[in-house]
């Protein structure tokens, strides 16, 4: 398999035995994975397709891992690079087992320089490879954002279609638990404002599998925003989802729960909170329709507008900062296309407009909670409730 010279520089083959011995490290030399991809196919659980009628549970972590595995197996041009993705099995274990299976030429542990390895990944994509670049968290992608936008996103347009950049940037995005301001920023609105990028954000394992596969197969740069707290959550997956050819369309939202009184839009972890809010609202006679955006760019404006035309009320929810956020864009879109259908002002729930504080009690107040969504939905439905959370 042909690799760019630049990419070779970051492989681990070829360091001196003297250096190995100096540190007393005997590293297990992994067999290079340059052989035929067909020989390496180990379909995850597709054999279960015809035999099991029981619904299987799958963790999001497993969903991402299996999607990466299957795409790497199917296409020898796909390779993974990032910090800790190889020997460490991934900072969050998303790439577990992949180094062992595909070897160091296709799973690259990079030195610490997001600007550096993102540039290298884009270069590899210019040449025709399909890199999947992992950021330990998207907070670190700020170091690399010049390459993501100026080297990747704009190239196809600037070259009038001659240059294609089939690259995926993935990693955890947004708040986790007690990780402070520099590890909790949400970048959905940042990347979704850029023409030339596609921005996806999965919620369930089905989303994770289908959207990651779509992202890897896509010929354009895709920013794939995961969520650290969702990695360990399990979701039911059907046989169709488990099939290695499973793929979700980019740009289509999913209606997670149908309703007729108010539309709630959300993505990633917030979808889970919105569904819980919908349960609470149902008990009070409000039927909420929950839309899982799945795709932030392109935004599925037709699904959102069709829903609002049905319910006449809208609550947008997101974890990120409010100003210029995803909710602001959805609100503008609905006003542009469905203004006369609105029976109430659009309610926007977002993270607090402060750098994420660390202390647990402060953090809880900075991130949307189920009660906030319930209150907003009630306001949209003209039920009188207090405006702000009690301290």
């Amino acid at each position: 398999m042909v690799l760019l010279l630049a990419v070779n520089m970051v492989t681990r083959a070829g360091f001196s035995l003297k250096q190995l011995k100096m540190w007393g490290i005997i590293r297990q030399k992994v067999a290079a994975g340059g052989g035929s991809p067909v020989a390496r196919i180990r379909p995850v659980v597709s054999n279960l397709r015809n035999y099991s009628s029981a619904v299987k549970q799958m963790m999001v972590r497993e969903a991402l891992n299996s999607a990466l595995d299957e795409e790497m197996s199917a296409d020898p041009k796909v390779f993974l690079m990032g910090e800790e993705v190889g020997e460490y099995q991934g900072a969050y274990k998303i790439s577990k087992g992949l180094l062992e299976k595909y070897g160091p030429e296709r799973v690259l542990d990079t030195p610490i320089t997001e600007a550096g390895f993102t540039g290298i990944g884009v270069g590899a994509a210019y040449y025709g490879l399909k890199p999947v670049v992992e950021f330990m968290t998207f907070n670190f992608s700020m170091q690399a954002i010049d390459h993501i936008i100026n080297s990747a996103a704009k190239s196809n347009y600037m070259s009038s279609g001659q240059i294609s950049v089939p690259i995926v940037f993935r990693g955890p995005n947004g708040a986790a638990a007690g990780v402070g301001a520099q590890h909790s920023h949400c970048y959905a609105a940042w990347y979704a404002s850029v023409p030339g990028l596609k921005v996806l954000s999965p919620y369930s394992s089905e989303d994770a599998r289908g959207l990651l596969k779509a992202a890897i197969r896509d010929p354009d740069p895709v920013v794939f925003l995961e969520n650290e707290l969702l990695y360990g959550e399990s979701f039911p997956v059907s046989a169709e989802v488990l099939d290695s050819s499973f793929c979700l369309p980019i740009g289509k939202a999913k209606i997670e729960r149908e309703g007729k009184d108010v539309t709630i839009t959300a993505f990633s972890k917030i979808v889970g909170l919105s569904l819980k809010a919908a349960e609470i609202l149902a008990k009070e006679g409000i039927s909420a329709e929950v839309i899982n955006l799945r795709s932030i760019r392109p935004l599925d404006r037709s699904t959102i507008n069709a829903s609002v035309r049905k319910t006449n009320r809208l609550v947008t929810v997101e974890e990120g900062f409010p100003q210029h956020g995803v909710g602001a864009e959805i609100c503008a879109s609905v006003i542009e296309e469905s203004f006369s259908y609105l029976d109430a002002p659009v309610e926007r729930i977002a993270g607090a407009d402060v750098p994420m504080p660390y202390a647990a009690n402060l953090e809880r107040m900075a991130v949307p909670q189920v009660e906030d969504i319930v209150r907003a939905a009630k306001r949209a439905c003209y039920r009188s409730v207090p405006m702000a959370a009690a301290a």
Partner: protein
Amino acid sequence: MRFISESSEERIPCYRVLDDDGQPFPDSSFVKVSEGVAIKMYNDMVTLQTMDTIFYEAQRQGRISFYLTTSGEEAINIASAAAIKNDDFVVPQYREPGVLLWRGFSMQEFANQCFGNKADYGKGRQMPIHYGSNKHNYFTVSSTIATQLPHAVGAAYALKMDRKDACAVTYFGDGGTSEGDFHAALNFSAVTEAPVIFICRNNGWAISTPISDQFRSDGAVVKGRAYGVRSIRVDGNDALAIYSAVHAAREMAIGEGRPILIEALTYRVGHHTTSDDSTKYRPVDEIEWWRTTQDPVTRFRKWIESNGWWNGDIESELRSSVRKQVILVSLTISKYGLLQLQH
């Protein structure tokens, strides 16, 4: 036509003062350290070691959410701090709380920050180990890697413009030398002739990435020459060598208005942080070898003992009193309570 080889036949030699038994090599020259300073250095190294042990356990018990240790790098922390002055502006990475300890930050203040309670100067806004203190001229720890390097150069430039008898001192690991900011900082420090000391703690590991995967140069020290920066390689587990090198570096930085790069070779004995288990990617006997036979605290103790400034009785007394003090602080921390939001 002759190409410059990618590496020289000989690696850059390493400056050492004390051998593994804490005795000075016969031909080594070093800056003399008085008994008072040496005792304080040793006390602080022991305190740092003890603090790390207790707070690490506190994280394991769920009382704080996060912690990282400085195990194996106590000499770099304390000896470098001892060799600079209070006016020197310190811009750390995150594995240098010993510098703050030397300057007088108390156990209580460290604990307040880790527990994020009412007495925390950061008002519970920062993760544990993100210490900072105006009073101690120690810039707040930031999680981002190597961003502190250009900051330090800027601060050093300001000190030079103000004609202060002070320099900036900044720390980073072997992993940090891969960052773009490292290159920008070194380059600019040379061009602007900024009085800054760059101290690289080359401890062999950046989380699970060994130095063989981080760079192919002969460590970090050779990079200095590429930017026109005077550099030295030092045994990071030798407190006297660190002290001498930093002392000399400071004189050159301020006296000649130039940056200096010091590469301190050492080993990260602990895990990267409490979120890491380093036995998953390196052999346990390697860790044990460095932890036991190469302990910088032990090596320094042997030196002060051989000078007649220390003995086994004082040692036991110190260890037990420091331990009690740290435990007491960590147990009473709950009395402060969490800061509440005020409307």
